[in-house]
């Protein structure tokens, strides 16, 4: 997910024709983190056998939890102390329902934290584009990218066109800027197609 947290760096990567390398890296990262996470650290608090026993005669209902393996997950192993005398145990146990459950708290924690950080990063980037970017780019007369502009489209495209052609200094910053401009124009186009002209995705 580093690619999404640092989109500028990722654009650079794309330009250096290490596009494939970065994609491979990303895929390896994703595919090798998540599944092993699932099997990782099955700590003892993450498995249990849960038996629910309903009210029986004059005994009230009760829930029993115990940390046993799957083949021991039945009424006889889990329900302790047994509330009924020996000859009633079978009838009582017929009513109880035992389920083996396991979970991985690490997976849940990691996934939620990854999700929240991606959302936070996207929000920060959006705030940057809306607030900070226009101030930096004041001489370029590049208007804010988040608003629909139907009137300024020609002015904007003319203003944006000189950036890639002409004197390509090829510095890192120039390329990043060029990539970002291109991405912004793409999003603008998509926004016009979907939101303004309603040509797609009614």
């Amino acid at each position, binding site marked *: 997910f580093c690619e999404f947290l640092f989109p500028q760096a990722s*654009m650079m990567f794309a330009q250096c024709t290490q596009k494939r390398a970065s994609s491979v890296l990303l895929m390896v990262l994703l595919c090798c983190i998540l599944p092993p996470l699932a099997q990782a650290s099955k700590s003892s608090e993450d498995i249990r056998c849960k038996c*629910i026993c309903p009210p029986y005669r004059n005994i009230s209902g009760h829930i029993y939890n115990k940390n046993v393996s799957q083949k021991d997950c039945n009424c006889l192993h889990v329900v302790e102390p047994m509330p009924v005398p020996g000859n009633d145990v079978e009838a009582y146990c017929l009513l109880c*329902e035992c389920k083996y459950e396991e979970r991985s708290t690490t997976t849940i*924690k990691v*996934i*939620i934290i990854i999700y929240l950080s991606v*959302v936070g990063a*996207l929000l920060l980037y959006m705030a940057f584009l809306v607030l900070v970017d226009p101030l930096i780019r004041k001489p370029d007369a590049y208007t804010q990218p988040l608003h629909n502009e139907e009137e300024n489209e020609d002015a904007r495209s003319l203003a944006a066109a000189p950036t890639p052609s002409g004197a390509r200094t090829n510095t890192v910053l120039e390329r990043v800027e060029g990539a970002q401009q*291109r991405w912004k124009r793409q999003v603008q186009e998509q926004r016009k197609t979907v939101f303004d002209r309603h040509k*797609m995705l009614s």
Partner: protein
Amino acid sequence: MDQKGYRRGSFQSSTSDEDMLEIAGASLDFSMADDDPPLDREMGGFSSYNGGGMNGTSTMMDFLEEPLPGVGTYEDFNTIDWVREKSRDRDRHREITSRSKESTWALIHSVSDAFSGWLLMLLIGLLAGSLAGLIDISAHWMTDLKEGVCLAGFWFNHEHCCWKSNTTFTDRDKCPEWKSWSQLILGHGEGAFAYILNYFMYVIWALLFSLLAVLLVKGFAPYACGSGIPEIKTILSGFIIRGYLGKWTLVIKTITLVLAVSSGLSLGKEGPLVHVACCCGNILCHLFTKYRKNEAKRREVLSAAAAAGVSVAFGAPIGGVLFSLEEVSYYFPLKTLWRSFFAALVAAFTLRSINPFGNSRLVLFYVEFHMPWHLLELVPFILLGIFGGLWGAFFIRSNIAWCRRRKTTKLGKYPVLEVFVVTAITAVLAFPNEYTRMSTSELISELFNDCGILDSSKLCEYINDFNSTKGDDLPDRAAGPGVYTAMWQLALALIMKVFITIFTFGMKVPSGLFIPSMAVGAIAGRLLGVAVEQLAFYHHDWAIFSGWCSPGADCITPGLYAMVGAAACLGGVTRMTVSLVVIMFELTGGLEYIVPLMAAAMTSKWVADAIGREGIYDAHIRLNGYPFLEAKEEFSHKTLAMDVMRPRRNDPPLTVITQDSMTVEDVETIINDTTYSGYPVVVSRESQRLVGFVLRRDLIISIENARKKQDGIVSTSIIYFTDHSPPLPPSSPSMLKLRSILDLSPFTVTDQTPMEIVVDIFRKLGLRQCLVTHNGKLLGIITKKDVLKHIAQLANQDPDSILFN
């Protein structure tokens, strides 16, 4: 042909194609991290090409032999040429096979080329499964966030929070670690004020989530809204939509899908999961040359990725493959079948190992009972089928009407406000009723559930007679007051869901409609099931019940009715047949219920088809005007090719290029004056005998390249498409040979060919255009857009609604 052109503002036509110019002109910027860069005349030709190009020292022979970068690629919103792509793949395969005999390295290369498909499927399955696990866990957590928070760790949802603590039998859902918002703020959870506070927090969270979703969609990836399945169907039929399956769309769709589902809106995540899986497929295709460069092969991969998407959505790999075959794909060769199954299995296995629901199940509403059913119950099942069909037709009509209104009136100008208002209405109406307050998946899970002794929900509050209970097998019992309350609450929930989904599907957030339709059907089914159960209990002496339902026996399972209802409604909306039954039977894990499911699915499809021909996805395709040639319907009119071809009687004659008598300037004039995407090449204007067909994009690229790189090419240079240059006086400028870009085998039909054969040819071969000849001479051209307009005209629809080409 009304196709788009490159130059802005110089097009004289006043049809709706004019709008397309804007799209074409501005999408000429390239997406470097995306597919092949489109052509951009404004940016001065080749100096800005990045993907390699010809260096200046190439000779004329190199120029002729190597294909130029850009030749053979397609513009945005255009249809691919299936025939060309497939033959290119065969050539590539032939070359690799022939070279493999030369050296060990080449042999390894050919073996790895053969395996690359399987490796790609494996990667797609892993990525799709991981993303689905992320979506499931996050959505589960965020849905519960509306109600409270877990003090033992904010990342736990309600169920996981209470995992560790010792809950009592009567209060199974409450535990001290989970605090609702009123408990957190006020310190106690009872009372009117606490209820109002909970209500308020619920609405606030819902609004926050949905606003965040729509802002992210609008700001970063506008293509991420909606369901995605209509557009993917169009893409798989050969259409190109750049950026629709890109990285940003993937990220934004994943993130905003979770937000949209958690905000309590009446939408599901299955359709968007298909889009997410196809994005994964498209992105991973860039790792392999075989799939990156060939659009037809790529679409095979996308079919498999769609299967993986449905497989993780429902935990049904076989159902996923069948869904991809039936609903999404256009061409589905047998090789794709096996590979799709592999990808679907890998995805399901990955999701299972992430284990989002804690019991190794992939779906929240997995059904675990296996109660038998009786043949007489087929009558209520067929009734449910009829209900499903009626509801499906009603939903499609109203949703399309609402979406059309959104497209054409001022309503469409305020997408953020629309999402805000719909979420506000949904949240305000949903909170009071406990069945709409819970997430739709949980609702379906509860409705599918067969009541046992241990269930404490209101729906299972029957009047128990403990003396006659034997084990867990409960007989049919009289309904207690809890059940009656649940019934009218469910009826209200049904009405609300029926109406609110119409306005929710199609909004500018990712929205699916499998879960809402299943919910509608499940509610209706459960209501009917409980009604039949009570009928059988109170009137067990009637003739229809006495045979098989004696008192004290458990004969009617309302959970089964809910399942059949869900299948019926889903079938009525999407018109799925085989894939629906297989998905539902994989959900139940057994073959017992195949007959009721099939009966309901068939009935609902027939009833819905009697009212309206199209499913929801085809209706949206038609609404948006995508150039999708429907493969399932027969063309039954008796028109001929000459009724459809262009030029028509009053049009100017066909624009052709001669094979060796036109100059560069002439060709450039033709390109600038017309907007056709290709030109037939004839021997001479007098004879009009066909040589081949050349594409506009290839012409532009070749001519510009020749002007820059080749010596002596000026405006008066002759362009020739023949093998040997025509004889000319020695003082004339050097000639330009463009035979390499000429398609020497264009498809032709005669003008008397019936249109049903022409439509069949277009469908089966995936053509973009077809030339029409008369007595061996070129007469006109039929393009796919002409065919679509013709079909629309004959079906009395608006032929101008076919927007794209």
